[in-house]
């Protein structure tokens, strides 16, 4: 295990907090004021997103939905639901997938991917709840459906309850990193001991609400196009969320290696290829399984004749172009141990999930309405969605740059040996 111990000296002063002294020419640590300014420094695109997002927020909460959205009685759910919520929840599935692989299925070689995946999922779910406020309004009444007036016969209640509980679970799973950063060892050890219980709880809750998001559309058989409407929708949403989660972990690892490499310790860097190819193998097989079961849905409802229509062509683009081909790309990437194929497949799959969620909730939804009654997002709806995505990137960088997310904290390197030891055997 000594091979995997991080170089403690690299954590004494972060290189980005070093500057050259103007007088002596020697390197010196930044002052607190300089550190704050460094932390507040934003990319111009990010700064623009935040300003525009702030403006959209003011407009939304002062003048109402009508000012900033194209929603109406025919289309009460826009891209704030399709992208911010449906895609957001699916793409945040990396948290439960990675922690289940590591702690339940015993793939300890994925341990270094758990914290980044949990952080991505935690921020993702937090922003799903945050974004939901734009749609439903009155943020102060957000707890009402859970604590005041429970709609126990509604799938939305089940989704809301699961997201509330799972967000809490993700917060507790993420909490040890914050406690290590704060140096609170005793509390950290107590919270860390809950890992297995939280992982099991997380898997159960994720299975429930990922599938329930698909089940939401079961109440609209006349609105969802038959090629996308199926009694298997809950299964489709759950299985595709697993593909999304696996792909997001690969994608997030790819970006972290490119932009935050200096923050990684030796173990994280050494395990990176194993995580990427292990997840690629799983994603290839699950994605191919998803491709197969999509056809079971078409066959069970005898919807073959719709394949010859325009919507049928679009369905084929989704199922072949964004499911089958990425699965093959993943398979070739894993088989040839080619990282480029795996990375391309990860981005491809993420796009495929976005296409699928947009199809079910927008493009194939209300498909019988005349085109002038169909929905297209308002400028401010797109701004809010971009703002939420920008916030995700910003928060991830902010936290991962400070807390032990991409490295094992030196004080706990030995403590975590039992879970950090790479597994031998067992294959990928």
């Amino acid at each position: 295990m000594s091979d995997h111990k991080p170089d403690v000296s690299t954590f004494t002063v972060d290189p980005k907090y070093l500057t050259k002294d103007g007088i002596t020419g020697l390197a010196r640590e930044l002052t607190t004021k300089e550190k704050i300014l460094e932390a507040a420094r934003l990319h111009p695109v990010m700064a623009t997103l935040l300003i525009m997002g702030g403006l959209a927020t003011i407009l939304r909460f002062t003048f109402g939905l009508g000012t900033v959205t194209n929603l109406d009685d025919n289309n009460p759910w826009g891209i704030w639901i399709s992208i911010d919520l449906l895609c957001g929840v699916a793409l945040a599935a990396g948290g439960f997938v990675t922690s289940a692989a590591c702690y339940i299925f015993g793939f300890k070689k994925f341990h270094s991917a758990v914290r980044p995946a949990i952080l991505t999922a935690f921020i993702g779910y937090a922003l799903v709840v945050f974004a939901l406020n734009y749609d439903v309004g009155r943020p102060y009444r957000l707890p009402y459906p859970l604590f005041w007036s429970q709609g126990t016969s509604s799938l939305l209640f089940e989704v809301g309850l699961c997201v509330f509980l799972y967000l809490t679970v993700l917060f507790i799973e993420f909490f040890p990193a914050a406690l290590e950063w704060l140096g609170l060892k005793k509390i950290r050890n107590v919270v860390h001991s809950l890992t297995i219980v939280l992982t099991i709880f997380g898997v159960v809750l994720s299975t429930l609400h990922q599938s329930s998001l698909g089940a939401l559309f079961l109440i609209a058989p006349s609105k969802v196009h038959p090629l996308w409407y199926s009694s298997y929708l809950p299964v489709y949403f759950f299985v595709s969320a697993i593909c999304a989660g696996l792909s997001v972990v690969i994608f997030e690892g790819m970006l972290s290696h490119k932009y935050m490499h200096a923050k990684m310790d030796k173990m994280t860097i050494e395990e990176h290829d194993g995580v990427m190819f292990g997840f690629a193998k799983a994603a290839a097989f699950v994605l191919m399984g998803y491709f197969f079961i999509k056809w079971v849905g078409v066959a069970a409802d005898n919807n073959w004749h719709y394949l010859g229509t325009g919507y049928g062509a679009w369905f084929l683009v989704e199922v072949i172009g964004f499911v089958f081909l990425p699965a093959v790309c993943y398979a070739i990437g894993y088989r040839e141990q080619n990282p480029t194929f795996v990375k391309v497949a990860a981005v491809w799959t993420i796009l495929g999930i976005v296409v699928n969620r947009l199809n079910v909730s927008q493009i194939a939804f209300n498909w019988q309405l005349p085109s002038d009654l169909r929905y297209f997002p308002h400028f401010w709806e797109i701004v809010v969605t971009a703002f939420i995505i920008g916030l995700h990137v910003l928060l991830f960088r902010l936290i991962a740059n400070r807390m032990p997310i991409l490295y094992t904290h030196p004080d706990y390197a030995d403590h975590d040996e039992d879970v950090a030891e790479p597994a031998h055997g067992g294959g990928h």
Partner: protein
Amino acid sequence: MDTGTFHTLHDFMVHSKGIVYIIMGVILAGSLIFWRFLTAREKPIRKY
């Protein structure tokens, strides 16, 4: 029975279930073939 014409629910179920069962067979075979393709270059794990 005419192709694509169902007079009873039973007709429909026999037809659609029949196709689903055929697809399930294809899935079973396809999964095995895909797994073989995926893992063909893996080094065997020595258990001894």
